[in-house]
């Protein structure tokens, strides 16, 4: 039976339209994965090699063991939010004479093949080779490695279990979240110590290798826990993501109603964002996104030119808009036929996209004003890039969006979800980020950087002034592309 599952799974992934049509995206993704693995591996080798220099006054093995506890706490939180729970689409098998147990075992074992499970190995193995093997016999090194793998797998199974429980019984998950938070707090206030705890655990395992049986038992018991939970919940409606039973009342905002049909479409877009899983994840990630500045600005303010700051400015004040406009029409792919047959005027429809971008950009600009603390020139550049974003880039994106004919599946989360993204959505990033810098650079070269900034800003303002005519051009383009778009959107998936 398992053989069939594996064959079906392969067919599913290789026949999915994403794989067939988006070679470029797959290459980019593969490249990212490769880079991440490479970075971890190089980091792992470097640390293992220089360990004695970095932590000179402690025993390297127990010091490393101490970090493992933190790693698992951190990985647990990260994975809880990032990891997609693998589900074999079980529905087509349920009415067939297929043993439930083989279905469940397949789902669970498959979850081991997760990227997150392999990543720590690239870090741990160099340490085992370069450090541990210097102090202990090979068999102990194997036991140590095996115990880490067992913990990684336990962690994985626990995530699967909790994510499933999130559907069935969210209280358990809340309880667990509180438990982890409490542990971290206790550690922070030095009431207990993660590092001592994990040093002790792994120290004991190194000393008494047979203790690894405890870790085996832990993993097995979580496996069994999962197994029975899935067995008693093997109904599609219970196993899959909870359908939203309640409706949320975004009561029509009074002001929007006074705007007539334009207000209606704006309200529709707000509901679209608020009521679909994929778009909602984007909303939730917005604060994190806006905090990126903390990453860049502290280092950049000292530099002389504005080039890189312009790049960041475009990103900070336009990132949200980029996400919205890049898929301006494919967000609505599922009901695009309705849009086309309805009495909504295409020009107004496109104007709404522009108005929303204006609001989103303004929001981003206002929220990033506090970064002025890192220097007044950040505020200046963000204002300039804000103008450029809304007056030039918005139109570029909107025009480009007419080339995207893949409907977005909104029911899945946004992390690691590249469904519906096309090559054009990636390629447009180039002009978005490079255009303002290209305009600015000649001026910088001739020693008049501020003139360069003013030119960039003026381009934005003129785009704003001529928005009516530019939107007309985009509407024309929309009419030209609408059949192609509608046809693409009708092919779901």
């Amino acid at each position, binding site marked *: 039976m398992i053989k069939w599952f594996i064959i079906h799974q392969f067919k599913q992934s290789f026949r999915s339209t994403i794989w067939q049509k988006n070679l470029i995206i797959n290459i980019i993704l593969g490249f990212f994965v490769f880079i991440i693995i490479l970075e971890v591996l190089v980091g792992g080798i470097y640390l293992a090699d220089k360990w004695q220099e970095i932590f000179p006054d402690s025993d390297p093995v127990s010091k490393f063991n101490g970090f493992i506890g933190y790693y698992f706490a951190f990985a647990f939180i990260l994975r809880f939010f990032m990891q997609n729970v693998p589900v074999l689409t079980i529905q087509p098998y349920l009415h067939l004479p297929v043993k439930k147990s083989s279905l469940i075992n397949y789902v669970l074992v498959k979850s081991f093949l997760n990227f997150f499970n392999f990543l720590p190995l690239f870090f741990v193995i160099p340490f085992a080779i370069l450090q541990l093997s210097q102090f202990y016999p090979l068999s102990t090194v194997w036991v140590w490695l095996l115990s880490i793998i067992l913990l990684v797998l336990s962690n994985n199974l626990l995530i699967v279990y909790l994510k499933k429980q999130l559907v069935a019984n969210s209280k358990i998950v809340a309880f667990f979240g509180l438990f982890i938070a409490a542990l971290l707090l206790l550690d922070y206030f030095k009431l207990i110590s993660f590092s001592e705890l994990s040093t002790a655990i792994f120290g004991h395992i190194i000393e008494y290798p047979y203790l690894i049986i405890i870790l085996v038992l832990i993993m097995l018991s979580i496996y069994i826990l999962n197994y029975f939970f899935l067995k008693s919940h093997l109904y599609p409606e219970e196993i899959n993501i909870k359908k939203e039973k309640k409706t949320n009342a975004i009561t029509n905002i009074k002001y929007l109603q006074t705007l007539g049909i334009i207000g209606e479409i704006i309200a529709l877009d707000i509901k679209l964002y608020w009521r679909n899983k994929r778009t909602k994840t984007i909303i939730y990630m917005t604060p994190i996104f806006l905090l990126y500045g903390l990453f860049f600005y502290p280092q950049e303010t000292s530099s002389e030119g504005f080039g890189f700051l312009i790049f960041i400015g475009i990103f900070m004040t336009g990132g949200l808009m980029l996400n919205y406009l890049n898929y301006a029409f494919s967000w609505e792919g599922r009901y695009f*036929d309705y849009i086309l047959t309805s009495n909504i005027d295409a020009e107004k429809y496109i104007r709404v996209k522009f108005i929303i971008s204006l609001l989103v950009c303004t929001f981003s600009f206002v929220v990033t004003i506090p970064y002025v603390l890192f220097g007044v020139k950040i505020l200046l550049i963000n204002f300039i890039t804000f103008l450029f974003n809304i007056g030039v880039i918005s139109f570029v994106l909107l025009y480009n969006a007419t080339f995207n004919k893949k409907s977005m599946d909104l029911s899945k989360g946004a992390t690691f979800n590249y469904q519906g993204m096309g090559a054009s959505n990636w390629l447009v990033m180039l002009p978005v980020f490079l255009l303002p810098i290209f305009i600015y650079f000649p001026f910088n070269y001739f020693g008049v950087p501020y003139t360069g900034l003013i030119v960039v800003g003026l381009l934005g303002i003129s785009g704003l002034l001529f928005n009516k005519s530019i939107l007309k051009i985009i509407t024309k383009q929309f009419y030209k592309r609408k059949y192609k778009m509608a046809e693409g959107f009708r092919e779901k998936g």
Partner: protein
Amino acid sequence: MIEAKELTKNYSGTTVLNIPELKINKGESFGLVGNNGAGKTTFFRLILDLIRPNSGGVWINNKNVAKSNNWKLFTGSYLDEGFLIDFLTPEEYFDFVGNTKGLSKGDIDDFLKTYKEFFDGQVLGKKKYIRDLSSGNQMKVGVAAALMGTPEILVLDEPFNSLDPSTQIRLKNLLRKLKTEKQVTMLISSHDLNHVTEVCERIVVLQEGDIVHDIKTDKDTLKELEDYFAV
């Protein structure tokens, strides 16, 4: 009122629809039947300017649908779930559609009251998004939305599909009423020969993209169609 001329549509070399000439008069109830792949939905999509014809076109009131938007004002349509905004509640969807058709809040409330029986207590006030409704109830929402603002032209693709028996009968009565009282021009496709002969006064049979029959409905029509489709 609706006119198709030299209308063809090809997909990768094969002709899926070829209608040299077809006229549908005002107030006519026009039924479209045919097996899967006969071109029914393609024809409706061409009428609604959702796909581009390879040649010819469709004219509503002597205006090419691809070149004018005017027809949208008085044409109600429902082909498939692609017409529903699935993250809205039915009430919100009706509000939105009503608004695009220029109805006031009062008009919309009146409309919903009239269709209370049609919804059969299954659609309104359930606090559910359209995506969480059953396919039958989604069909009710789509058909009702197409009827908002009393359109002059109504295009429905297999409206009897997935409806329960009571609603099928209600829909038939409703369509007959619209025809006699409001002279709505109706284009309805169906796999169910019974329904379509009951509602439509003219039936066109499509086969592999060609019109093979164009008949006025009388008491023998059903028998005739059954003979035609019998294998």
